[in-house]
């Protein structure tokens, strides 16, 4: 179920006078059963990249392989349904996609499209709603009566209900309150535990280090770096400035310490790690 990109280039309006190249020579492999975070400044091509994961965009040249399905520029729209059943996609502000009369009906929309029987669809919609903590007494309400945070969860359930092997989320934490953010990270961890491949875009480095196994850094439509969080976040501080990215809080703290004469053997990723390292390396000062 791994995902590979081979020499993928993408332009909007390819072949017209207004062709706008976005992605350049992308070669990546996203491993199965892992959480991969995609980071990079606004306009670096992150959202364009993830829209290739379920064929919403097709590469202008090159190919994307998801499990045994290959997507190239010549792939027909009809062949993509199978791919879309495998990939649950949660867009930025997914609450804008809600349309049905009730919460449950809205979540059932995906499974029904992918050929589930009504009662199967209902069951999987219910378990998806439980997974994202939407209380049962809201299931028959109109989705438009819910609060913003609840709408977000319902929309996420909508993407998870068809039980995809791959879950892709574009800035899922944007605009959530701290509790909502913590629950989101827990959801990602649970999805990973149940063997799914998760890809998410984030601007919050603390989220990245807390759940991601792999990090892909995008810059100007190129993949700048791919590696584990420990690799990526131990790069030179000037490099981070050059790609306009922050360090996680623990890393920022360590940099401040270093500027004030307390150096550590490597950059810690989490506050726990920072505390442990300080304890071990500077115990007798």
């Amino acid at each position, binding site marked *: 179920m791994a995902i590979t990109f081979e020499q993928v280039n993408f332009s*909007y*309006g390819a072949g*017209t*006078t*207004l062709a706008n190249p976005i992605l350049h020579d992308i070669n990546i492999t996203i491993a199965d059963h892992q959480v991969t975070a995609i980071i990079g400044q606004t306009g670096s091509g992150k959202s364009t990249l993830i*829209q290739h994961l*379920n064929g*919403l965009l097709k590469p202008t040249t090159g190919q994307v392989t998801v499990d045994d399905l290959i997507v190239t520029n010549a792939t027909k*729209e*009809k062949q993509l*349904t199978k791919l*879309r*059943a495998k*990939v*649950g*996609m949660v*867009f930025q502000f*997914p609450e*804008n*996609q*809600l*349309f*049905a009369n009730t919460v449950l009906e809205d979540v059932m*929309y*995906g499974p*029904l*499209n*992918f050929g589930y029987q009504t009662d199967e669809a209902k069951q999987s919609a219910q378990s998806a709603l439980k997974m994202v903590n939407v209380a049962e007494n809201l299931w028959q309400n109109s989705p*438009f009566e819910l609060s913003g945070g609840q709408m977000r969860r319902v929309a996420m359930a*909508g*993407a998870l209900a*068809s039980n995809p092997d791959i879950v892709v989320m574009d800035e899922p934490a944007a605009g959530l309150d701290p509790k909502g953010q913590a629950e989101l990270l827990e959801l990602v961890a649970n999805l990973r535990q149940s063997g799914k491949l998760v890809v998410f875009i984030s601007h919050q480095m603390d989220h990245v280090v807390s759940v991601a196994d792999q990090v892909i850094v995008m810059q100007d439509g190129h993949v700048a770096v791919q590696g584990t969080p420990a690799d990526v976040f131990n790069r030179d501080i000037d490099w981070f400035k050059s790609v306009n990215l922050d360090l996680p809080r623990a890393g920022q703290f360590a940099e401040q310490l270093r500027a004030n004469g307390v150096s550590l053997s490597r950059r810690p990723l989490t506050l726990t790690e920072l505390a442990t390292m300080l304890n071990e390396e500077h115990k007798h000062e």
Partner: protein
Amino acid sequence: MNNIMIGRFVPGSSWVHRLDPRTKMIVTFVFIFVMLFASSWATYALSAAFVILAIRLTQQPFKLYWDGLKPIFWLILFTVVLQLFLTPGTPVVFHVGPLQVTWPGILNAIYVMIRFTLIILMSTIMTLSTPPTSIANALESLLAPLNKIHVPVAELALMLSIALRFVPLLMDETQKIMNAQKSRGMSFSTGGPIKRARAIVPLLIPLFVGALQRALDLANAMEIRGFKDAASRTKYRVLLYGRQDVVAFIGTLIFVLIFIGIKISGV
């Protein structure tokens, strides 16, 4: 979504871009009006020359205009076919069942095609070289005399400019919602006509909800910044006719005079 050229503004600093929007609007309307009287090869050739000159002056590639014509290709084809089969006269060139194609019919069809193409190219020149807000301002300025008979011109122009401003936003929004529903397995290309029509519902409802929400947000944003009515607002960009506008008007006048000359001499 990305290749619709009708009404799209392409930024630039060409001679046409720098014209006063009112000039462009008046010239375009004059041209369309004149085209209604075109009836011979000479008049069509003259009009085509005028359009080609205007296109050159926008300093945009011809391909851009060609792309702009593509979406309405079927509309042109439809009118051409109508003209081809429904123009009576002699000599008859050939029959297709009860329909007959006459020589005047063929001529008419070609004329209509050229007329259609030229009118659309001319309007494309205007919209391509003028930002939507300038078009609304020009309209407001040109319709100002109607204020005397209590037509709320300023309000109408503001509504128009807001509507135009929302077009790209709503197109973006449509694309986003379409992507979201496609990811959930929405398909327009399977099933019978009823099933296909029903497939639009998950697209339309979020679009309407979003548009209403946006409208409310905009109304609030305008009110907290002190908006009362459109008429008493001043403009950041004051429209002023310049030397190039005089040149454009004189050029158009010459075009119209030659056109009338050709019509009178009956070429």
